[in-house]
Structure formats: structure tokens, C-alpha cells
């Protein structure tokens, strides 16, 4: 069902050039659009309902997105904090210095001079060290 609502147009003829048919033109304008069929109010109500549903959906999506970003930032902050204060991390400071240690060792005095004569008479046993040994002879 269409609704018809008469409507007076504000300042319709303002600034019109002066022409003979202006009255008829003004009447046409007012009749035409005051008498036009209008979209029923119930249709506009349904449009408003759909619009509000779209706004609610959008607000929910934005809320989820904000929570997601907040959670991501918390996790990132936690990871950074653990990196800074974690157990395997050494305190930062000056780089390791090269350590030189010197120890003075007192050595005993030199021992007695070696004997002039060898302890063992090697000449009497030279057969043991030769290329051939006499048969039947034991070392």
C-alpha cells in the first residue's frame, strides 16, 4: 500500500527568471512531488533494522580485533621480558679481559756431575749388540 503525503516545497520559485508560464510551472512542481507515491514506513523500518544489525556485527568484529591485538601485544611483551630476565642469560658488562698469570718456580740446584766412567762396561757385552752372535754362546 502506498502512502501519499502532501508536501509544500520551500522557496520553490525563488530566483526564477520572470517568464509568463511560471505560475503553471510552480503548480506542476508542487503537484508532481506533493502527490508522488512514497515508500511505505514499514519498508523504511525494515531498512533501519537491517542497518542496525550491520552496525552490531561490525561492532563485534571490531571488539574481537581489539582484543586480538591486545593479546598479541601481551604475548610479545612477555616474550621480550623472558628474554631479558631468563636463567641462561649472563649479566651484561665489560667484555672478558685477557688474564695472564705468571708463577715463579724455584728449581733445585743442578745435580752432581755425571761420572767419568760408564756404569756398565759395554765392551765386555758388545757381542749382545753386534750383528752376528757366535753360535752356542749364550748372552
Amino acid at each position, binding site marked *: 500500500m502506498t502512502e501519499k503525503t502532501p508536501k509544500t516545497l520551500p522557496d520553490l520559485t525563488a530566483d526564477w527568471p520572470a517568464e509568463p508560464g511560471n505560475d503553471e510551472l510552480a503548480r506542476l512542481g508542487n503537484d508532481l512531488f506533493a502527490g508522488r507515491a512514497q515508500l511505505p514506513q514499514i519498508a523504511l523500518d*525494515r531498512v533501519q533494522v537491517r542497518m542496525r544489525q550491520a552496525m552490531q556485527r561490525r561492532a563485534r568484529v571490531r571488539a574481537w580485533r581489539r582484543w586480538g591485538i591486545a593479546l598479541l601485544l601481551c604475548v610479545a611483551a612477555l616474550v621480550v621480558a623472558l628474554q631479558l630476565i631468563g636463567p641462561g642469560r649472563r649479566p651484561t658488562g665489560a667484555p672478558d679481559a685477557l688474564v695472564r698469570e705468571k708463577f715463579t718456580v724455584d728449581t733445585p740446584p743442578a745435580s752432581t756431575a755425571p761420572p767419568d766412567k760408564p756404569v756398565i762396561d759395554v765392551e765386555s757385552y758388545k757381542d749382545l749388540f753386534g750383528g752376528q752372535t757366535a753360535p752356542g754362546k749364550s748372552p
Partner: protein
Amino acid sequence: MRDDARRDRIEALFRDYSRGIGNYVFARVGDPELAEAITSRVFLIVVKSIEQCKASPVAWLWSIVRSELARHFRDRKSHVEIDESVPDPATEPSEQAAQHEMAMRTKAALARLSEEHQKLVYMKFFHGMANKEIAAALGLTPSNVGVLIHRILKQLRVYLEPAASLEGQA
């Protein structure tokens, strides 16, 4: 924009402009269900893109309405148009026929106007805006608007003649 400020702004636009938009779309497409669907799409775009509405809300809304109507007419070319409007049972059959004929002629006449003139018709005759408000929205002077309205009505008078309206519907 905060959610509540956003919601308030959209509701204000709906309150102020939905009737004018719905009636204009209805006048252009001639079918109340189709007009409702297109008006819904307009306001769904408003919900999605309200941040783009900077200076003149009526000019911004017009750009959306124009775009959605263009989309409708472009898609409609591949379909046969069937007039499914239901006559008002409270009116006499002869009155119904006269109303229907006038609606069809208005629809054809509006379609023949240039885009600039359609915008002025939309603002003046469907939103009931004063010349000064239209001038502010479009960057014109009130005097320019008055002269343009005069010119548009002269054109519409020609297009609404029965013979001329048949040409427009062909």
C-alpha cells in the same frame, strides 16, 4: 571514530535522510520492494563507510544512491522488467490507473534528466531542502539553484507530456 559516536552519526543520517532517499529510489525504480532493497544497500554502505562522509552528508549520500541506482539499471538490462506493484485496494480502479500512469511517467521523466539535474531534483523535491542548503551542499549560489530548478521543471513539463513519456520509456 568511537563506536558510539559512529552509531549516533549513522542513526542521525538515517533519521534525516532515509525518507527522501527511499522516496527518490521508489520514484526511479517504480517498485516498492526493489526500492526497499536498494535503500537497504545504500544504508549498509553508509554503515561500512561513514568515515568517508566529511563535508556535506546529503551530497555524499547522493553519490551512494546514484551508484546503487546505476548498478541496478546496469544489471536490469539483462532481465525483463515485470511490473509487480500491487494496487492499493482502498482506491478506486480509475484512480489506481491514473496513479500508476503518473508514477510511470514520473519515473521515465526523471531518468531522462542529466545527472546534475537528477541531483538537484533529489535534494529539492525528495529531501525538501531550501535553495540555500542545496547551494551550500553543491558549492553553488542560491540564485544558481533557483535558476536550475526553473530549468529542470520546464524540462520535466515536456517529458511528462504523454507522447514524450512514451518516447522516454522506449
